[in-house]
Each structure stands twice: as structure tokens, then as C-alpha cells.
């Protein structure tokens, strides 16, 4: 160091050592910088885009080859090529002529150019002279010079104009001559192009994406544009995004536009040719309904996350908040993409099994979401099991309680039966919709069972002491069991009730739910008395004013028959199960526990001492009913204004995950898993927790299959908080009325009997059984006849019937199809309800509402005669099947058709025309013959009537119907309804 000091420069550090440090650190910095670029260059989405492009090139090349092969095999194309060859050979022979002509054209062209220019100049001179002339005339006066100039320029201009036009004419003629030489070749070219259009399109595409098809310059540019740093200009690899128009993103403090970058990796969603590709390149299913620009959900408006949820701005697998469908898939993703749950995003993507959850937020008004079967099934299950009774759900606000009215229970059944039923409803009616509250994982230990048995005693005690009186007279006639059985299966009970003979093995679907609208018809003999049943059947509303059970207008005899049949069904095994005695000590404990929840210990103690056993039972019963929330599904005296006890579910799907109490369970931490577990084992989250008898979970257990649970979970995940600006399904009058009608139809289970909007008619299966069992038909016959003996299909009802008539009919049903055994019940609808139904049918069919065309048939004598003739057996023989007033047609009832005398009040005039023209179109499968074949319409009608004019014939048929005179036959009207 000391020597160095003497050097020219004073240095204390070894410069070469520092240089080395600098060199090394610079190199490392360089590597780090490359690392930064490499990290960007290898981002997941870039790799996906590269892979997609390879796939795309491969597919396009394949398509190109196919198109080429097609062309090669196309005879027409090959002939064209041959022709073109011939034509060009021909052309070669005319080369001298062609050259001479071309020379002429060139000469003429220059000539025309020169003369035309002179004409233009002359015109300019003339315009100037014209101005001077006009100006002078107006001001200082015309002079001779001006006049002369004007005349001169004008004549020159005209002369040159003619000359230019002549030259042009000659030139055009020559040009045409020349082009006629090439005409044939050009024509052939065009024809060829038309055939090879597809190939050309593919070729242009390939030139864009396939480097092998590119020019050298393009190939270089294609590589260059994606290089690091320069890729800010116009790269081919880029993040692609859709700014969603229908929904926004909720960031709690503000709403920001939803920006979906999913298509950055999911490049093939709109490409039909990627249907068999693997994800992320796969085509989106059902492009007619989703994503394509003509569909109701175009990509550029809806994006992806407005339906699928997830984080649209995420550009890698994890940050997009993908959700696996199963633990296996989760594992696969972990290995493949380093997937882990993206807990920072509150709305992770819906897993594939629950993808339909995304439909609900915009379609929440609908009862049936076509195309979202699972979600609809889930909604139907929620509706049927009455989840909304305990858990408020906006969609179901105001819907009726699902359980029976218990206000008059003492007249209906016995205390012992009630005890057994509350303890284990499944033992009485397997598959009943009454959920189980006892014998579950948090109260099935012997100690709890002893406790809860006494609780049930208290509940029963309360119900029976509070029960009102129900006045029942003696049954006036003796019921006939066998007749009752037939009546039950014929008049339509099975549209809403499951019968005693039906097996429970098969999985329920939406259709099955229709026939589980009411309770299963099982075990009545053990439950209730014949007398009670008789009164219930005669008029259900006297027992329960709000019941949805309609009145079937049964005669005394019919009601007695059915009651005697139903009480013959009993469940002995259930009634043999033991009912423990009321244990006073235990009752004391229960009452004390319940009192201590409300009062300080000394007061509880005092109150307990002052209570008799009766008091204790009554107090405990009432408190437990309140605590368990029984009143949510049942009308119970004393609980009229009570609030339901469950958590509101309207926005359950948006609740953040950590608000779900997973407690000590080790299930997967997701909402779907929590819902699934809660529905399957409702009390499982109590496991391992120390809880007092009134701190335990209270959610009862419903008998759902795994598939059903999955459907309900889909619906729950769909119950999300929505943006007020969310573009829901348009709130047009049509949609509103149709939605209200759909809800009305479900409320009254119309589809149990009728097919409406293509669904329903659940009763047909039972009608078949009835035909076999009680009408002696074979299975095959019964299947063919079932539709004829079932309530009508209501397809196109709005187009078909007059609103006035429908109003009266729904108010008080009349007989239209006397051959039907099954009855349209009397519902006691109020006018608001009937209007809902009428509006529904009319708006569904886009019919004008409320007023429709009024026809005043004015038939001439000739037309009248023609009508009569056409109705007669010589022609269409209408009354061979159709009933006319009280006159039944001949033959068996399965051939009968509705009463035509009702037509003028019932049917819309326009519909009758359409119906006669083509009944199959309006009601596929109808028995009504097609007299006017639409394919040979003009030859279809009889030639000797109304000059063979089919349109006139149909009009007269219709008008005749509207003035149809009453039938002469005075046979007594049937007392049956249809």
C-alpha cells in the first residue's frame, strides 16, 4: 500500500479487485434482468396462446388439405380447369389480331386524352366568358367584344365536346372488342373462384397464422412482434379481454366494470372446430344459447364471470379463482398448474357441477329455467321442502306454509300417533317431506333420547290443549271400500299424492316431484278416523281455510267410499312402537332448563315450584315449539306472528366463506362442501362441541338423495347479492305475467294433471295403471289410451280459448269432456288468481290481451247448407267423435272429443281455423283427423262444396260451429266433469 501511495494517483482500494466485483455483479444483474424478461415471456397465458396457435395451425392445415382434396375430387372444378386450358390455347391463335387491336386502342386512348383535355379547357374559357357576359349585363352593359367572346367560346366548347364524345365511343368499341377475347377465360375464372372459395378463405387464414405459409418478410415480422420489449407495439400474443356490459364487479366501496380476460387462455370458446380439444381451448357448449353474437348471451356483452363467477382480471390459473369439481380434480390441478384456493377473492368460480348457479341472478323471477335443469330441480326441491319457511328467501316471499294446519289436530289424530310421528316421521311414511328432528347425530345418545322423548310429550301436550274444535257430523252413508279404491285412482288424487303401491326406489326427478305435491296416501287407518277423512274430502277448507287441497265436488257416497278405502290403509308396525311414559323428574329438569334461559335462577326455581305437571308440559311444549320453529311450516295456535328461526338465504351464495362455521369438521373449506354436508348431516357441525340441550344445531334432516343435495346446493350458490344495475332478464309485461303465471301454476300443481309448456301430466302414469286395473285394458292398450283419458294438454291454451270463458271455467269448472273420470277440481280462486292464470296463457302465446277478434258469423243459406253437409256423416262426420250438447257420440269413450256446442263461447275464432287446417301443428299427437293436408292443400277439400275452395270451406266450417244449433236429443246430461 505504501508503495502505491507514491504512484501518480492516490488509491487505497485495489482497482482491479473492484473491477472484478463490478464485472461479476454486472453479469449477475444481466442474468437477473434476463430472468425478469424470461418470467414475463414464459407467463402461463403466453404458453397457452402458443399452444393454441400450434393447434390452430394444425387444424387449419388439416382443413386446407381436406378442402384441396375435395376440390380435386370435384368433377366440375376439374372440367373448369380443362376448359380454361383449352380457352387459353384458342387465344394463342388470335395473338396477331389482338396485338393490332391493342395498338389501335393505345392510339385512340392518347387521342381521346388530348381532345378531352381541350374540351375541358374550352369549357373553362366558356364558363369565364359566361360570367363576364352576365356581369356586364347586370352592371355597365353589354359590349360587342363581350358578346363575340361569349359566342366564340361557346361554339368551340360545343365542337370539342362532340369530338371528344366521338373518340370515346370509338375507344369503348375497340376495348369491348378486345375484352371479348378474354371473356371466356374470365368467366371460367369466376366459376372456379366460386368453387374454391372455401379453400381460399382457409389459405388466407393460414397465411396469417402458419409461418410455413408466410413470405419471408412476414415470417420475420411474425417472430419479431412477439419479442420481449418490442412486444408492446402489436404483438400476436396478447391479453385479450371483454368489458362486460350486463354486470359490474362489487368491490364493497364501489362498483367497477367487470373485465374478463378468460379468453386470453380460453381461445377456442367461440370456435366450433375446437369441440373435441382439451381445455383451455375447448369450444363453449351450446353456442346457440351462449356466447355467439346471435345468442341471447353474447360474449361481448356477458363476458364470462357474470355467469361463471371467478376473477375475470386474473391471467393465470390460480388468480382466476378456478374451482375444481372434485378432490381428484383439485389434486390434478395442483400438480399441473400449482392450483390452490385463491382465498382473496370472495366469489370463486362455480365448479362445473354447480355451474348453473350462475343463471339464477338474472333469471330469479322464473320458476322453470329451461336449459338449467339442475338449478330448476334445486329450486323445485326448495319449494317443495319449504326451506323458505324457516329461512327467508326473497324469491319465495309470501309462499304458503308447507306443513298441514295443526289448529284442529285433536279432531284429526291421536296423541300417541303424534308422538310417534314427531319422533320419527320416516317410520310412518318413508320418504315423507316432514323432516326428522330427533334421532340425529347430536341427539341420538341414550341420554338425549330420554330427554327429547319428554320434550316431544310436551310438544304434543301443547298442540292438543290448544287444539280448536272441529265440528263433524256422522257420515250419512256407508262407504264401499272397493269403489273407494277405484275412485282414488280414477278421479285424479294421484296427480298430487303418491299412492300406497308406488315404490320409492327410483330417483326422484322434477316430474316425480309433481306427484309428491301432497302427502303420500299411506297409513291413514293408523292416523285418523273415517269421519275426519270424510269431512276433509267433502270440503277441505272447513278444516284448513288456506289449504291447497282443492274440492273435488264429491258426492256423499263418493266421499264415504274414499274415506273407507283410505282408512283401510294402516301402518301397524308404526303403531306398535312404544311410547314412553311421561317422566315427571325429567319434565322438571326440562322445564327448569327452559325457565333458566328466560329467568334468573331464583325466579326459575320459584316458578317451577308453583307449576303443576300440566303447566310444565304446556310451558315446555310452547317454548320448545318456539325454539324448534315448528310454526314456520305449520299453523299452530299462539304462534301466528312469530318470526322464522333460520338464517336468511336470499344472499347466501355471496356470504364470505369464513362466516360459515366449519367448527371442528375437516371437510373441504368451500361453500359447496359446507352446504352439502349441512344438508346430508345437518347436525354434524356439533360434533365434538360441548353444548347444552338448547344450544345445539336445530336444522332438521330431509330425505334428500346425493343428486338432490347437489341440485339444492346449486340453487343456494346461485342466491347471490345482485347489483341494482344488473341487466336481468328483461322486465317486459310479457315476462312478468308469464313468470307470475308459472309461479301460480306451481303453487297449485296444475302440471300434476295438465301438460303446460311441455312439462307435467304426471298423472298419466297412474291413469295407465287405472286402465289396466279397473278397466281391464292390456298394458299396451293402456299406454296408448292414457292420453285420451288424461286431463288435456294445455299447449297453446292462450291461442285457443276465450279469456271470458277461461275466467268462468276457472271460477266454476264445467263439463267439456264427459268421458274423463278425472275431475277438474274447484279451487275457489279469487279473481286476482284467475287473472294471473289468464294473463299467463295469453302472454305466453303472444295473444292480444284482454280483447280479441270478435267474429259475427253471417252465413248465407247456401253456406249454411254447405256447413251442414260437411259436418254430416257423408263428409267429415264431426259428431262421430265430438259431443254435441247432451248427445254423446257412438263408439267407446276413448274416441270421444269435446262438446262442440260449447265452441262458440269457449274457442277463439282464429284458433278454430288454424285447428281445422292443421291440428297436429297445434297439438302434436291429437286424435283430431287432418282433413286438409297442408302439403296438398288445394286438392285436400271436397270438390263439390263451395266450388272446392278450401279456404272458404274452412271458414264455413268455423262459422257453422259458431252458430251451431242445439242438438235435438234431450238425453240427460252426465253428472261427471272433465
Amino acid at each position, binding site marked *: *500500500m505504501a508503495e502505491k501511495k507514491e504512484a501518480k494517483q*492516490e*488509491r*487505497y*482500494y485495489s*482497482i482491479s479487485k*473492484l473491477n472484478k*466485483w*463490478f464485472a461479476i*455483479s*454486472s453479469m*449477475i*444483474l444481466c442474468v*437477473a*434482468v434476463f*430472468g*425478469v424478461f424470461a*418470467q414475463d415471456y414464459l407467463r402461463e397465458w403466453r404458453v397457452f396462446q402458443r399452444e393454441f396457435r400450434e393447434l390452430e395451425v394444425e387444424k387449419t392445415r388439416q382443413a386446407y388439405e381436406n378442402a384441396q382434396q375435395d376440390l380435386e375430387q370435384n368433377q366440375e372444378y376439374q372440367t373448369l380447369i380443362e376448359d380454361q386450358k383449352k380457352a387459353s390455347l384458342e387465344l394463342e391463335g388470335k395473338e396477331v389480331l389482338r396485338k393490332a387491336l391493342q395498338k389501335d386502342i393505345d392510339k385512340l386512348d392518347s387521342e381521346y386524352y388530348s381532345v378531352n383535355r381541350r374540351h375541358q379547357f374550352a369549357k373553362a374559357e366558356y364558363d369565364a366568358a359566361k360570367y363576364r357576359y352576365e356581369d356586364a349585363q347586370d352592371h355597365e352593359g353589354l359590349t360587342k367584344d363581350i358578346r363575340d367572346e361569349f359566342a366564340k367560346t361557346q361554339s368551340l366548347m360545343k365542337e370539342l365536346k362532340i369530338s371528344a364524345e366521338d373518340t370515346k365511343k370509338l375507344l369503348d368499341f375497340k376495348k369491348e372488342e378486345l375484352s371479348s377475347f378474354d371473356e371466356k377465360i374470365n368467366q371460367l375464372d369466376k366459376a372456379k373462384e366460386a368453387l374454391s372459395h372455401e379453400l381460399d378463405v382457409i389459405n388466407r387464414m393460414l397465411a396469417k397464422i402458419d409461418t410455413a405459409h408466410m413470405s419471408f418478410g412476414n415470417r420475420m415480422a411474425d417472430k419479431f412482434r412477439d419479442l420481449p420489449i418490442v412486444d408492446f407495439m402489436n404483438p400476436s400474443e396478447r391479453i385479450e379481454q371483454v368489458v362486460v356490459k350486463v354486470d359490474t364487479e362489487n*368491490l*364493497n*366501496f364501489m362498483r367497477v366494470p367487470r373485465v374478463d380476460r378468460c379468453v386470453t387462455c380460453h381461445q377456442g370458446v367461440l370456435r366450433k372446430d375446437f369441440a373435441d380439444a382439451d381445455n383451455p381451448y375447448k369450444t363453449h357448449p351450446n353456442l346457440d344459447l351462449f356466447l355467439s353474437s346471435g345468442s341471447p348471451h353474447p360474449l361481448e356483452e356477458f363476458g364470462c364471470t357474470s355467469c361463471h363467477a371467478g376473477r375475470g382480471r386474473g391471467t393465470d390459473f390460480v388468480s382466476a379463482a378456478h374451482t375444481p369439481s372434485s378432490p381428484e380434480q383439485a389434486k390434478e390441478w395442483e400438480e399441473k398448474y400449482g392450483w390452490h384456493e385463491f*382465498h*382473496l*377473492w*370472495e366469489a370463486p368460480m362455480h365448479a362445473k357441477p354447480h355451474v348453473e348457479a350462475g343463471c339464477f341472478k338474472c333469471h330469479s323471477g322464473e320458476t322453470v329455467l329451461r336449459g338449467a335443469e339442475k338449478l330448476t330441480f334445486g329450486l323445485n326441491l326448495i319449494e317443495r321442502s319449504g326451506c323458505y319457511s324457516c329461512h327467508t328467501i326473497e324469491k319465495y316471499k309470501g309462499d304458503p306454509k308447507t306443513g298441514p294446519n295443526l289448529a284442529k289436530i285433536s279432531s284429526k289424530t291421536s296423541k300417541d300417533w303424534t308422538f310417534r310421528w314427531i319422533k320419527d316421521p320416516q317410520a310412518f311414511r318413508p320418504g315423507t317431506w316432514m323432516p326428522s328432528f330427533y334421532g340425529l347425530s347430536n341427539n341420538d345418545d341414550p341420554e338425549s333420547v330420554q330427554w327429547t322423548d319428554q320434550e316431544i310429550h310436551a310438544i304434543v301436550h301443547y298442540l292438543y290443549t290448544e287444539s280448536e274444535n272441529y265440528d263433524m257430523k256422522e257420515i250419512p252413508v256407508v262407504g264401499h271400500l272397493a269403489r273407494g279404491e277405484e275412485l282414488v285412482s280414477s278421479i285424479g288424487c294421484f296427480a298430487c299424492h303418491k299412492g300406497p303401491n308406488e315404490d320409492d326406489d327410483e330417483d326422484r326427478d322434477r316430474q316425480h316431484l309433481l306427484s309428491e305435491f301432497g302427502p303420500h296416501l299411506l297409513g291413514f287407518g293408523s292416523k285418523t278416523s273415517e269421519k275426519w277423512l270424510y269431512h276433509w274430502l267433502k270440503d277441505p277448507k272447513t278444516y284448513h281455510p288456506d289449504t291447497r287441497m282443492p274440492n273435488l265436488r264429491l258426492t256423499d257416497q263418493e266421499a264415504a267410499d274414499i274415506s273407507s278405502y283410505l282408512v283401510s290403509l294402516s301402518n301397524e308396525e308404526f303403531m306398535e312402537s312404544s311410547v314412553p311414559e311421561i317422566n315427571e323428574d325429567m319434565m322438571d329438569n326440562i322445564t327448569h332448563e327452559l325457565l333458566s334461559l328466560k329467568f334468573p335462577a331464583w325466579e326459575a326455581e320459584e316458578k317451577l315450584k308453583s307449576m303443576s305437571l300440566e303447566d310444565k308440559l304446556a310451558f315446555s311444549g310452547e317454548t320448545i315449539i318456539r325454539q324448534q320453529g315448528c310454526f314456520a311450516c305449520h299453523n299452530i295456535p299462539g304462534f301466528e306472528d312469530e318470526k322464522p328461526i333460520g338464517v336468511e338465504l336470499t344472499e347466501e351464495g355471496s356470504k*364470505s366463506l*369464513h*362466516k360459515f362455521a366449519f*367448527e371442528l369438521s375437516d371437510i373441504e373449506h368451500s361453500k359447496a362442501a359446507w352446504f352439502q354436508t349441512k344438508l346430508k348431516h345437518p347436525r354434524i357441525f356439533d360434533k365434538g362441541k360441548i353444548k347444552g340441550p338448547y344450544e345445539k344445531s336445530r336444522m332438521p334432516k330431509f330425505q334428500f338423495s346425493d343428486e338432490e343435495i347437489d341440485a339444492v346446493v346449486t340453487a343456494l350458490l346461485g342466491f347471490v347479492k345482485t347489483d341494482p344495475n344488473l341487466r336481468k332478464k328483461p322486465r317486459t309485461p310479457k315476462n312478468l305475467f308469464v313468470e307470475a303465471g308459472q309461479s301460480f301454476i306451481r303453487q297449485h300443481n296444475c302440471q300434476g294433471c295438465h301438460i303446460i309448456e311441455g312439462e307435467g301430466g304426471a298423472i298419466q302414469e297412474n291413469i295407465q295403471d287405472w286402465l289396466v286395473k279397473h278397466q281391464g285394458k292390456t298394458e299396451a292398450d293402456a299406454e296408448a289410451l292414457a292420453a285420451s283419458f288424461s286431463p288435456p294438454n294445455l299447449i297453446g291454451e292462450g291461442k285457443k280459448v276465450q279469456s271470458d270463458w277461461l275466467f268462468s271455467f276457472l271460477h266454476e269448472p264445467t263439463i267439456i269432456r264427459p268421458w274423463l273420470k278425472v275431475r277438474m277440481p274447484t279451487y275457489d280462486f279469487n279473481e286476482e288468481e284467475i287473472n294471473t292464470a289468464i294473463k299467463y296463457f295469453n302472454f305466453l302465446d303472444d295473444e292480444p290481451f284482454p280483447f280479441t277478434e270478435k267474429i259475427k258469423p253471417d252465413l248465407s243459406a247456401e253456406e249454411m247448407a254447405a256447413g251442414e253437409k260437411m259436418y254430416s256423416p257423408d263428409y267429415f262426420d264431426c259428431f262421430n267423435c265430438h259431443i254435441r250438447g247432451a248427445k254423446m257420440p257412438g263408439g267407446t269413450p276413448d274416441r270421444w272429443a269435446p262438446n262442440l256446442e260449447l265452441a262458440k263461447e269457449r274457442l277463439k275464432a282464429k284458433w278454430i281455423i288454424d285447428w281445422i287446417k292443421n291440428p297436429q301443428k297445434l297439438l302434436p299427437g291429437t286424435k283430431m283427423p287432418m282433413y286438409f293436408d297442408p302439403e296438398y292443400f288445394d286438392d285436400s277439400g271436397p270438390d263439390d262444396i263451395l266450388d272446392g275452395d278450401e279456404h272458404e270451406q274452412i271458414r264455413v266450417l268455423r262459422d257453422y260451429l259458431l252458430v251451431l244449433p242445439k242438438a235435438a236429443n234431450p238425453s240427460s246430461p252426465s253428472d261427471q266433469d272433465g
Partner: protein
Amino acid sequence: MDAFKSIINSLSEPQIMFSFLVLVFFFIFPPSDKLYRIHKKLRLDLLWTNVGGVFIFTGLFVFFGLGVTDENFRLIVTKPDNVPIVGLLFLTIFFLWLSMKQGRDNDIRLAEGQKPNEYHDPEDKVLVWPDLVYIELIAIVLCSILLMVWSIYLKAPLEGPANLADSPNPSKAPWYFLGLQEMLVYFDPWLAGVVLPSFIVLGLMAIPYIDSNRKGQGYYTFNERKTEISLFLFGWLLLWVFLIFVGTFLRGPNWNFFGPFEEWSLSKVVPLTNINLSELVYVRWLKTGLPDNIFLREFFGISFVVGYYLILPPLLARTILKKFYSKMGIFAFSMFVILLLTSVTLPIKMYLRWTLNLKYIVAIPEFFFNI
């Protein structure tokens, strides 16, 4: 291994760890001659040698190395938010060791009658231009490398959209405020968030005026400035770095305490049975109810506080801090004692909490005034 982990977990309870550290602290950084002699006798000064350094850092690395094999420990230590604090821990200890080592070397030289190391023209003398600038350039390059590599491997710890109705649990302040947040456990927000931080800033500003020891200027020494260094390090290491460490690594959901190998369970419940001094005196000791009069109720607390700040300073000036009093004069001494007493309130409050479940010494919620 599990037994070892549970021992570590229970040793990390703040009561135990803090007491242990306080106890050990005064032997490692002895403020008085008497303790210094014990320090020497125990050969604790050997920590500040190369061998000691290897020992300290081997211990730290082994602990962290083995620790990260535990899932709970790994989760906390490798959380992108917490990585800088792990770095802070190592850097704090390293620089502490480095300066103490230089101080020890000089102490030995001084004891032998030699001048301190820094007295001689150092061999590694640096010229600003070009050497220092060059070195700084290299340092910039190395730091850039560090930041780049860090940013490649650790993603920024961004959170989800903030939600009023749903705050994260635990809600943690940025790492440099975690000491303050930890103080909130023991003090009213007004004190922990406003008064004490102001005192810290004022205290740091006042150091040059209070510290009248002219020794150790321009060179490292421990022996000649042991009281000053010991007091400062007590505040810095135990009342600041330690609190950050606890706040970062050992406070989990609901601000409950968790050992380094314990799972952060959301459902952990710790009984909250804290009481105010007034309740302690009237209810527990005198077995009567609380008086209605606020001043009567808080009489003991107020007396305690007033006594603490009015009686203790003159008492200290006459007893153990006599030397300082005579050296500093009344004004500087008062400042010093007030600052000292205020900083000591934290450990006092901690121990009162741990032993008597004491919440506030003076609690007047009527005026939002609590001490």
C-alpha cells in the same frame, strides 16, 4: 420433536419470554460495574468475538432451519409480508454483534493502555472519488439484483378488495407499527397510539442533550458507556424489536397469542378477565362496591400515577441515579427521568396485567380517559 416444539411454544408465552429476556439482558448488556464484573466472570463477552458470532448465527440458522420443517412455523415465516421481518431479525442481531465486537476489542485495547482501533489511520481508508463512488455503484447493482430476484420469487402480498363488513382476522398493522399495535394490548389507544409514540420521537431527539458522557466519541466502546448503551438497547431491543417480533410472528386470530409451532386456530378462546385498579382495591381488597364519585373511585390510581411521576424522580436522584443527577443538572436529569419512567411503564403495565389481570390503573370511561 413434538415435545421440543411444545416446550418452545410454552416458553414463547410473553410472560416467560419477556421475563427471561429482561433477566438475561442485564447480564449481557450490564448497566453497572457490578453487573459488568459478573458479565466478565460468566465470559458472556465472548459472544462478541468471531467464535461468539458463529455460535449466535449457527443457533439462529439451526432454529429457523429446523423450524421451517414445521408447517405452522413455515406458514408464518414465509408469508410474503413477514419475510422482511425475518431479514430484520437477522440484520439487527448482525449489526448488534458487529458493533459490540468492535467495542469489546477497543475495551481490551484501552484496558491495556493502548489507543482505540479507530485512533490509527485505518488501512482500509477510502477515497470518495473514485473508490467510494465505485463501491456504492456496486452496492446499487447488488441491491438491484436482490430486489429483482425477490420480486420474481415472491409475489407482492396484495389482498382482496377491502370489505367493511368483513375485516381480516388478525388485522395487522404494517410491520413497523406492530410494536405499537402490541402496546395496545396493555394501554389505552390514546396512550399507545398518541402519547407513547410522541415520547419515543421526543426521546430520540433529546438523546444528544441528555447524554453527557463524552467518552466513546469516534470509536466503539462498551465499558466506557455501559449505562447509556444498556438503557438504549433495553428500549430498542426489548421495548421495540421484541414487540414487533411478537406482533408479527406470535399474534394470530383475535390477537390471541400463539407459539411459533402452534396452529392459528380461529376458534381459540382465551378468557378475558381483566379488571381496573379501582375494582381491585374496592371490590377485591376492601370488599365493598365502587364509590359513585369518579375521583373517589379513581383515587388510588391517580395517586399511583402522580406518585410515580412526582415522588420517584427526586427519590432516584438521591439514590441510584445520584451520579447522573450530579453530572446532568436538574433540567437534563428531569427530562431523562421522565423519559425513563415513561418507557418503564410498559414493562410495569405488562407485569401488572400478567400478575393481577389489571386493565387500567386509572379508568374514567366517562371522559374516555384511561391510563
